[in-house]
């Protein structure tokens, strides 16, 4: 995870104003997590409910076909971007097939 250069008070815009739009991707919120969601590719039905509810959004649709152990074929996979996932657990709560594990972060 890359860290922003910590600017001094003279270099920072007054009052914490953020002068360029769209720079939230430079803010890595992944280190907020105490638990992390892990998508179980075999259980996941690709309904994308997690993608809808993720407030970050840190659920990524990956262009990688996947065949489950039971032989079901998907044209894409669903992954969590841990650079941004804050560990809020909304995806875990909302996942209908219970295809997201909720695992405590290790020290």
């Amino acid at each position, binding site marked *: 995870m890359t860290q922003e250069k910590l600017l001094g008070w003279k270099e*920072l*815009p007054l*009052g*914490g*104003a953020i*002068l360029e739009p769209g720079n939230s991707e430079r803010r890595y919120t992944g280190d907020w997590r105490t638990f992390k969601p892990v998508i179980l590719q075999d259980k996941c039905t690709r309904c994308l409910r997690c993608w809808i509810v993720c407030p970050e959004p840190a659920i990524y649709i990956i262009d990688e076909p996947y065949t489950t152990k039971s032989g079901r074929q998907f044209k894409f996979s669903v992954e969590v971007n841990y650079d941004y996932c804050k560990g809020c657990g909304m995806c875990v709560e909302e996942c209908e097939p219970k295809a997201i594990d909720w695992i405590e972060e290790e020290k």
Partner: protein
Amino acid sequence: MESVLKVTWKRLPLSTNFAIAQAVKDSDVDVVSAYPITPQTTVVERISEFIANGELKAEMIHVESEHSAMSAAIGASAVGARTFTATAAQGLELMHELLHIASGLRLPIVMSVAARALSAPLSIWGDYSDVMNVRDTSWIIIIASTAQEAYDSVIQAYRIAEDPRVFLPVLVAYDGYAMSHTYEPVYVSEKSDAFKDYIPKNPRWYTLNPEKPITMGAMASPEWFYEFKYQQVVAMKNALDVVKEADDEYGKRYERKYGIIEEEGVEGSDITFVTYGGLYGTLKESIEELRKKGEQIGLARIRLFRPFPSEMLADIAEKAKALVVLDRAITFGVNISGPVAREIISSLYARGIERNVYSFIVGIGQRTVTEKDIIAIYEKVKEMLASHERQKESIYWGVRE
């Protein structure tokens, strides 16, 4: 000198509230949002009249509370509007969290406060408890002592607040009732555009504009927050010079100026009185009597409470044997409980100046302070000074046993 822009003045009988309203008009304010509260209400009522009869082209936002009044003012200032609000007492307290936001976002809002005691028990009368609570919000605090000064100070306040070295909100305070409702002759400009070169409209602070989007009020995590607070520390430091410059320039252009501390007879005085607001008038009157008897008394009035003019106060203290500070507010639970007295003591400590500073609490909830009181306080201090008595705690003058 190419000075004086040929301002024609008209002399009007105005209460300080009305003088403030007049200054808001003459500052060509764009947005006013306020909620009525005694003894401030007539400020905004008069502004409403100016807007209604077309003398001031501004948006008046009627809000449901002071919390909303300050919120609306923050919004207006954040899009670059010249913004004003007025309040007092509980209204100012209700605004309190927003005061930090206005200054933290570096918005040059100007607010007038008719200083009033804080409930409970309910008191609609004057003292400076409300204003002193603004101390730690990073607002610049000017305290006027006449209606004329209040008028001039509001106009100066925009020049101070909108200075890029500052970009902080300014509070202009004055005594509730004793000033807010007392009529005095006030010179106001005949024409409303008389100050447009003194306070040109040119928002240079960060503003919200869809053409060039920015984010204001975002979160700052522990590794960032401290630097933004330090920016405010520096802005406050800068403000001392900016306030002085704004006043000097005002004096040059309009031939009225006040300085940061109004003083007289402080050179070689035995005892110098220090106070603020309308009480200074009473003090001046009372001291005349004592001076006639040959007493060496200095007088100083602090016109700026934040940033605090520590160095200037230290200079004044150095010229006297002792200082008497009359405070119209109490900071509870500490031995020296006059807010200004405390600031002076720490200013002297920082400069290594050994002077007795006697802190008196007076005029709480508008308890009358008369010439007799001042003279009795003077006698008391003389006694304490003669016996080298160091004051261990503030004296609550006139409180009944």
